[in-house]
């Protein structure tokens, strides 16, 4: 008789989700679906944490502050830290080589810096789209 294969059970309970929090929020339980945000969308930036790259970017653009980047936060996609790129309409996952700090403000600054670099990169998806479809 063939030996019945035992179903492997992981001792660790798989957790999907969420920086800092491991369980679903009460609201998520109630509505039965995951709330996409894994951060406080209303969190105001702490300008003491701004990185040298972002300072240079602000100066180059001629702005007084982070401007549109104030709405950029480090989120979570498929169990990995990520930042949402509105131009590509997708999440950009953070490389594993980058060690993330413990607080959201520092994480947000890293997310902003990476997002700007991604959008300026010749490998950004919009580069191909613009080449194909740009009208004027």
């Amino acid at each position, binding site marked *: 008789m063939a030996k019945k294969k035992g179903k492997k059970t992981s001792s660790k309970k798989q957790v999907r989700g969420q920086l800092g929090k491991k369980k679903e929020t009460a*609201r998520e339980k109630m*509505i*039965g*679906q995951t*709330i996409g945000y894994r951060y406080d*969308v*209303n969190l*105001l*930036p*702490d*300008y003491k944490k701004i990185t040298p*790259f972002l300072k*240079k*970017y602000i100066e*180059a*653009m*001629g*702005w*007084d*502050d982070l*401007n*549109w*980047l*104030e*709405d950029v936060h480090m989120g979570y996609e498929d169990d990995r830290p990520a930042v949402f790129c*509105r131009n*590509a309409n*997708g999440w950009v996952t953070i*490389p594993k080589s980058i060690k993330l700090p413990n607080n959201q403000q520092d994480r947000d600054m890293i997310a902003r*810096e*990476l997002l700007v*670099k*991604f*959008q*300026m*990169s*010749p*490998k*950004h*998806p*919009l*580069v191909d789209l*613009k080449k194909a479809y*740009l009208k*004027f």
Partner: protein
Amino acid sequence: MANIKTIDKKSKAQSMGMHTEVLTGRTQQKFFNPDEAENFYYFGTYDVDFNKRTDLDVMNMSAPEANKEIDNLMSQGYGTIVIKNPQGKHSLGVGILNKLNLIFEGSLGYFGMGSCDGPIVRINGRVGWSCAENLMAGKVVIEKNAGSCFGAAIRGGDLICKGSVGARTGIDMKGGTIIIGGDAGAFTGFMMQRGRIIILGDVGINLGDSMYDGTIFVGGEIGSYGSDAVDAELTSSDQNWLRRKLKVAEIGDDFDVSKMKKIVAGKKLWNYDNLEPTEKKGAI
């Protein structure tokens, strides 16, 4: 890119011809090195110099002609453009996806500065409906008053009106900051989903009606609260940010931000998709 794949007809809806194809493989992997891009230049934009300045008289031009000429000047590297005689024309300055210093010497009509991404704009007059609609990034300053739907559906950037604005300011906004030096009309922040509105004066009825998220700061009197708009505590972080932002907006130097009211979403309207069947049952 997503692959389009034809599938056999299966469901009733499909047999009725409502959808015969399915999108698969939407995930795409793009790799980049964070060190490769420190050029402060977006692909497809013009490399302009803020110190290179020119004037453009649009009195005898239509709005499309004026907008094309602005684009042409940017392609020549002009980083500061002064528009003379805008004479309340509609749709001036739309679709600028570039860093640029743009100054209007006069007033704009409807939909001025719509769908922009990056420019710094100063309008030395008034603006009509839906100014800076869908703004993605940059700064737009209006020296006088603005019409209704000011900053409709903006996604980012700073939109500043030193005077008063009409109804439905920041309707459906999804990011960015709207700053108003005077008063605002009814339904301010209607259905806003993210972002911040600062009003130093009074605001009309139904403030923040059906707002999903975001924050509204009010310095004066509130006509009435809209559905799901509730008060929240003004923190020291809020106050520091407000002082910084008012400095950026060049208004309210001596304004006492500690007395401002903070309004947020009660979040009772959130994610009702799964609750809907229950509500339907109740209705039947």
